[in-house]
Structure formats: structure tokens, C-alpha cells
């Protein structure tokens, strides 16, 4: 066996992240590690790559036990990681990024031998069909190519145990297919591959064996042939899961959100949203699909008043809006931001304080300069029970809640107003399946009650499950709008890659 993890245990304050986890993978084999967010996959991989040290258990490479003290030792044993958040230096070129840490040098002072390093990268890139330009700057490369640079980094270090952490999270379905071709090629050449994912269809497609993790423990190992998506989901969550969302037929009403010729710039001053035209009617869910970083963040920030509009107009129920978040909220817009702790909640504030962030300045929560703590507490207590927020008390720091409960605090606050439009950006990012179901149900309830809903998500499955109409964003533009009935994975996937 090329690699075996025996009884790995890792305790963090308050969480047993890995509880006697044992997995194994052999040369030429693709092992999928399946689990929800928080199941302990990433902790396990950080242990394997030498970033964390386990409290118990051993890592056995070629039947020899190892205790990695740092990443250099893991790399020396042949383990290569492709992290979910790429570990590249944006201002370096591909050659420098790949060789960093194992540079090709000449002479006693370590002068870089760039021509030799470049030649080696060209050779590797050609051997494995990675198609990477050794002279390109990392910051100019699309994410799919950056990922191949990460794979190159591992190959350059002679890694024959390759760990990919959620590799498809940033890819279109077609790019994912290309990645799978590369992965299968590497496996055929004798590399042992660990493929970490929470996407059921992917692990069934790529893996030879699937090990499922739940709450830090191995639930079981199966082969794709003997399992199905629903069986895997049940293993992953620990109960029966409904993979689709129930919804009523609702006739759509008048236009609530109208976006005309919208242009928005990003922080660097580049045009991030180009001439977007979009309408959302009362009683419908419009989903905006797209690979991360194609202008969705800037689009949502413009809609919610967090970012200036460069050109064009945004109208909500006939009122043109400007950069004024409170005014927009008071018009009846609920905002579920993509980054909970940056734009949704204030860490260090209590659940109750976060619940009244949109209304603390008004009756009944305050009058004049006085804040009525009783009224705040009463409203927050009610919200905690209405929205099933699991918190020790309303005076608990919101930062100490789980992601799912933090998201419920936001949903409780935002849906507590008289809502006409919901703008949800990655509304279920990083949540467990139970919380995802809950948030989806609340969103569909709003739609059924005649609210206009815009959901922006990079999870294609989420958009397909929720939306009545699907708009695809690519390079700042809406490249197509499809009714749900015509939106197959393939059609949407091609649009996500910019193919019209």
C-alpha cells in the first residue's frame, strides 16, 4: 500500500476534528474522500501535508511509519497537495511559482537557474498534457490554469501521492471534465490520488473507492458500483436527505427588480460588471450561475448599495436606487451576503445585537438616544425560536455559533422586514446539509408568498435546484438566460465557460 493513515486523531478546542480516522490508497488508485463541510476532511489533509501534527495515529508511507514535522518532510515522502485556496504568489510567473521551495540553482550562493527550471516545467507540462505557459504571470491566469499550475508544483516535486482538496469548486462542469482526464492520466501513470469533495455525482464518476467521513469519523468505504447518490448522501449526513426542493407553481407578478445597462468596477478599478440587463418578477426565483470571480460579487454589492454604480440603473419596484444600503433595505430588500462574517454579521456582537442591526435606530428598539435593551431582547428571543437558531442564549457572541446558525441569524433579520426582494449571494456556502435544506426551504417560502428572489451561487446544483429562470454570468456579462426547463447542466456549463 502506497499510503495508509492509521487511527489519526486531532482535537481542536471544543471540536474533535478527526476521531481515529484510517484511510488507505495505493498506486494508480483514485480514492475519494467524501464529507460535509466540517466533517474533518481538510484537517486530515493538513495533517497529511505536514501543516498540522496529529494527537494520535500514524502516517504510513510504503509500509514505513512517518511523523511529519513540517510540509518539507511530507513533500520528501512524495505527498503533493493541491489546496482548495490556491497556494500561489500572484506576482510570480509560473516558473517561479512552481519551483519555489525546490529551486534549480547554480553556484554556492544559490543563483537561480531559470532556463533549466523553465525547461523542466515545459517538459512536465507536455508529458502530462497540462498546457501551461511557463512565463505567464499567475495573476493573469484563469482559475482552471492556476489549478494545473498547482498540479505541476506537485509533479515537479516528484509527488506520486496527489491530494486534491475540493478541486472542482472553482471550475465549470466542462473544466471539471478536463481535470478528470488529467487525474485519470496521472493515476494510469502510477500516482496515488486522494480526491476530496462534497459533490456526490463527482465522486461517483471519478473514484475507484469512496471513503465517507462524518463528524470526524470514517462512516464507511464503498465502491461507486455498489452505491448511489442517495445512499452516499445518507452516509454523509447520517439520515435520509431530500436532494430536491419542493415547490408550488406560482404565477409570477409584476417586475420588482429591474437592472438596465449596469456597469460596475471592482476594487482595482477594472470593469467587473458589463452592461447587465436583468429583471426579477414577484413570485419567481432567478438564479445567477457562474464560476467564482466573474463579477457576481460586484453585481450583488451594487444591488445592495455596497458599491457605486458606474453606469446604468437599478430600479426596485419603480424606485431607482443609489449607493445607500439603509434606504435599499427599507425599500424591502433582504440581503444574504456571500461572506457572512464580513458583510452579514458583526463578530464580537451578540446574537440579539446582530438581529437588530437593520432596525436598532427605530422604534421600538430605540427612541432618541436611548436603546431599549428589553425590546431588543424580546424581539431576538422571538426570532431565535421562530428560526430555530441553536444558540446558548441571545447574549452569545455571534462569532461562536456554527456557520448554519450564523446564517439563520442573518435570514431571521433580513426576512423579519416587509420583504419585496431577496438578494442571496452564496446563501448556503460552507453549511451542513441540514442547514442548507432549512435555508432553501425559507427562500422557497418567500417565493411562494410572492417575493422576488435573486440567488447568486457558484454551486451549479444549488442554482438548478432553486431557480425558475437561470442567468449565467461570465466575465462580467450575463451571457444567457434560460428557463429552468431548458437549463441542463451541459447548457449552463457551456455558458459558464463563456461559450454562447
Amino acid at each position: 500500500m502506497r499510503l495508509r493513515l492509521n487511527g489519526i486523531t486531532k482535537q481542536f478546542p471544543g471540536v474533535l476534528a478527526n476521531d481515529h480516522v484510517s484511510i488507505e490508497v495505493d498506486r494508480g488508485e483514485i480514492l475519494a474522500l467524501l464529507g460535509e463541510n466540517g466533517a474533518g476532511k481538510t484537517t486530515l489533509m493538513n495533517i497529511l501535508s505536514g501543516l498540522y501534527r496529529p494527537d494520535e495515529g500514524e502516517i504510513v508511507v510504503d509500509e514505513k511509519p512517518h511523523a511529519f514535522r513540517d510540509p518539507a518532510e511530507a513533500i520528501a515522502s512524495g505527498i503533493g497537495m493541491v489546496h482548495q485556496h490556491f497556494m500561489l504568489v500572484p506576482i510570480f510567473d509560473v516558473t517561479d511559482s512552481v519551483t519555489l521551495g525546490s529551486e534549480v540553482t547554480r553556484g554556492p550562493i544559490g543563483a537561480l537557474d531559470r532556463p533549466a527550471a523553465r525547461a523542466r516545467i515545459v517538459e512536465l507540462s507536455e508529458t502530462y498534457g497540462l498546457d501551461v505557459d511557463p512565463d505567464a504571470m499567475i495573476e493573469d491566469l484563469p482559475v482552471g490554469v492556476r489549478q494545473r499550475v498547482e498540479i505541476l508544483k506537485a509533479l515537479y516535486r516528484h509527488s506520486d501521492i496527489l491530494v486534491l482538496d475540493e478541486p472542482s469548486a472553482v471550475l465549470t462542469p466542462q473544466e471539471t471534465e478536463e481535470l478528470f482526464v488529467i487525474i485519470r492520466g496521472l493515476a494510469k501513470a502510477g500516482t496515488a490520488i486522494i480526491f476530496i469533495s462534497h459533490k456526490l455525482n463527482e465522486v461517483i464518476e471519478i473514484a475507484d473507492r469512496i471513503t465517507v467521513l462524518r463528524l470526524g469519523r470514517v462512516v464507511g468505504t464503498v465502491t461507486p458500483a455498489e452505491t448511489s447518490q442517495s445512499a452516499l448522501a445518507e452516509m454523509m449526513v447520517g439520515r435520509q436527505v431530500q436532494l430536491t426542493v419542493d415547490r408550488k407553481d406560482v404565477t409570477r407578478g409584476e417586475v420588482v427588480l429591474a437592472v438596465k445597462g449596469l456597469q460596475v468596477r471592482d476594487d482595482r478599478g477594472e470593469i467587473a460588471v458589463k452592461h447587465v440587463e436583468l429583471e426579477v418578477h414577484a413570485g419567481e426565483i432567478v438564479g445567477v450561475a457562474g464560476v467564482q470571480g466573474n463579477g457576481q460579487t460586484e453585481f450583488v454589492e451594487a444591488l445592495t448599495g455596497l458599491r457605486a454604480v458606474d453606469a446604468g440603473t437599478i430600479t426596485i419596484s419603480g424606485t431607482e436606487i443609489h449607493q445607500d444600503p439603509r434606504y435599499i433595505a427599507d425599500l424591502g430588500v433582504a440581503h444574504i451576503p456571500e461572506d457572512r462574517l464580513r458583510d452579514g454579521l458583526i463578530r464580537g456582537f451578540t446574537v440579539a445585537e446582530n438581529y437588530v442591526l437593520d432596525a436598532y435606530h427605530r422604534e421600538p428598539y430605540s427612541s432618541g438616544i436611548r436603546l431599549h435593551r428589553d425590546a431588543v431582547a424580546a424581539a431576538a428571543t422571538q426570532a431565535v425560536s421562530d428560526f430555530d437558531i441553536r444558540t446558548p442564549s441571545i447574549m452569545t457572541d455571534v462569532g461562536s455559533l456554527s456557520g448554519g446558525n450564523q446564517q439563520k441569524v442573518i435570514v431571521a433579520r433580513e426576512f423579519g422586514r416587509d420583504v419585496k426582494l431577496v438578494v442571496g449571494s452564496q446563501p448556503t456556502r460552507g453549511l451542513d446539509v441540514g442547514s442548507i435544506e432549512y435555508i432553501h426551504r425559507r427562500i422557497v417560502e418567500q417565493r411562494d408568498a410572492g417575493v422576488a428572489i435573486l440567488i447568486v451561487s457558484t454551486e451549479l446544483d444549488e442554482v438548478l435546484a432553486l431557480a425558475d429562470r437561470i442567468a449565467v454570468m461570465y466575465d462580467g456579462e450575463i451571457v444567457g438566460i434560460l428557463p429552468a426547463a431548458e437549463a441542463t447542466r451541459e447548457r449552463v456549463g457551456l455558458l459558464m465557460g463563456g461559450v454562447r
Partner: protein
Amino acid sequence: MTGARMADETTMSAADRRAHNNGLIRAAIYAAVGLLAVFVGLFRVPADQLTAYKVVFEESVIQLPDLSLPVGGTYMVAGVVGLIVAGLQFTSPSSVSWRRLMSVVLFVLAFAVLTGILGGKTPSLVGLMSATVSFALPIVFAGLAAILAERSGVMNIGIEGIILLGAAATSIGGSLLGNPLAGIAIGVISGLLLGLLLAVLAIRYHVDQVIAGTVLNLAAAGITTFMYTRILQVKPDLNQPGLVGATPIPFLSEIPMIGPALFNGSFYLYAGYILIVIMQLAIYRTRWGLRLRAVGENPKAAATIGIDVLRIRYRALAMSGAVAGFAGSYLVVVSTGSFQIGMSAGIGFIGIAAMIFGGWNPVGVAGAALVFGFARSAESRLGTVGVDVPTVFLSILPYVVTIIVVAGLVGRVRGPSSVGQPYEQS
């Protein structure tokens, strides 16, 4: 403007329009300044007034006649350059490299004003250049110290304090050991230790790097003032480290204009050249430099491939401190021969400004330091030639130049991404 460009304007976005309008405003300013200079040259200066610049020292082997410039003519040349630049700016308002244009205008204008102020006198251009280099040299060291720290991702605001303490240590050490070279060694070592102290505060204890540096600066000012009044004034023989003399390079130091400035200095000058070249090569062409830059840009990425982020940062801070201590020793053994209260005089901060102006790049820092050194040398030279400008204005000149350069010329340059953020090793 052509019809096509007018059509463009209607579809331009707010930001493009802003850039376009700013360009037109700049063009108008250049034109106004240019016209003013031409006007001054034609009507406000006596037609026959000359400024005779000396281009060689009296003791030089090669002797050349003075460079006589008509004041009015110099103003007019500057004015014409201003108008040409205005024209360039006007024809493509938002697309020209306006920082470069602005530097050109500022330079010719500064030279014209200088010639005007000195009208009728015989100032020494070669002396001005020598002074420029000797004022620039400590700024170069301060700037290189700043680069070493920031490239590794740690901000070193404490350079000013390290220079001051390094100067004090050099003076006392040199006096005690009776040898200025020993004093320099002690100055460098104390700088290194202070750099490590900052590193421990910033890296191990995650103290805010601006605050740690500021505290060091305040402490350095307090400690050295106390030492000076209580020890050095009581026992003056502890403040006599001796001087390091100049070592002229044969032939090269005889080149008119630039020879005395560039090739007739103490070993600090040559050490400066070597350090600039070595650092430039080391940062961009060696394994050490690649890792240093990686750690400063994305420490997590460096750590995942087995690079010891903290060790690189500790070493960089130690080197940064040592170079700053070297700058402090220069002030003592080359400039004054003894330690004086507050003798760092903002060199550490100007060094940080030079780092930014020079784009975190050693050769760039050298260029920036020359600009600042020129301002300081112009201040001292104009004072001695005896011009009709109040000395207060002359003495604020170097700082005004620093502010103009950093605020106006540099704009938004991109430094290492992770500067100022502590790295948490898991």
C-alpha cells in the same frame, strides 16, 4: 479633438471621464506654469543676468571654465518644456504616463528656480553634487533596510530609532575601543539586535507593527537624549570615536562634475554601491530572494511547500536592523565625528519614503535617495551662498520634497501584499 473621440466621450464611464478630466486639468496646469516661466524669463529677470556654476573644485587636476547660464534663458527653456508637456498631456489626456511627465516638469522648473535664486552668483555645481551624494547615502541605507524588512512582509517603522541608537552605540563603542572601525561594528551589531527585538515583538507576540516601530523610535529618542546629557556631556571622551576619511579612486575621482561626488568618498560610499548591486541581484536572482518575496507576498503559499516563513522573517529583520545601524554609524564617523541629540533627523522615515518611491527595489531606492539628498544639499548650499530666501523655508525643503514625491508622484504603487500582517504558524 476628432469626431471619433467626441463620440467615445458619450459612452465613457464615470471613472474614464474622471481620468480624462484630470488629464485635462493637468495639461492646463502645465500650460499655466510654462507660460508663467516664459513670462518671468522675458520680463521679470534682468536681461543680462547670469548664474555661473562651478563644475570642478579648485584643487582638481582638470580645470574647466564655469558653466554660465543666463537666468532669463533658463526660465524660458523651462517654460517651453512645460508647454510641450502640456501639449502632450492635452492630446491624450488619460493615457500618457503622467508621473513621468510630471517629474520632467518638476525637474526643469526646480533647476530654473534654482538658477534664478542664484542669479548673479557663482555657486559650485560640483559641490552641490558632492553634498547630494553624501546626504543621499544614509537615506540609501535606510531605504535598503526598509526593503529587507518589507519584502519579507514585516513593516519596519523603527528604522529611525535604530539609526539613532546605532549612532550612539557607534560613538560610545568607538571611543571605548579607540577605533572608529570597532565603533562601526558595534553600531551594526546593536542595529541587528534591535531588528531582532522588533522581530520578536512583531512575529512572536503579534504586536501591531506600526506601534512596535513607533515605540522603538520614541524609546530611542528618550534613551539617547538621556545618555547624551547624563553620560556623554559629563565624560566627553566617550563621544570621540574618531572619523573615517575619504578614499578617492584614482582617475575616476577627477572626472569633472560627477567625479568628486561619486568616486571620492569614504568606504561607506563604495559599500553603498556594492550593497545596492548585491541586494538587487539577491532579491531577484537568487533562491534567498525568491523565497523572501514569496514570504512577503503569500506566506501561506510558502509554508505549504516547506519554507520556514518565520525564520526568513527573523533573518530579514535582523539584516534590516544591521543595515539601519550601519546608517547610524555613518552619521557619526563620517558626518560629525560625535553623537548628537536627534542626529537621525528623519533619515529613517525618508528612507521608508525612498523605499516606496523606489518601488521596493534597491536601484529605485538609490534614485529616490538622490532626489531627497538633492533637496537637502540645495537647502544647505543655498544657505551658505546667501540667497534672499528665509532659512525656515530652506530647512523645510527636504520634507516638502518628500511629501510632494510620496503624495503626488508615487500615487498607488503596489508593495508586498502581506506587509503588516502577522503570520500564524499552525
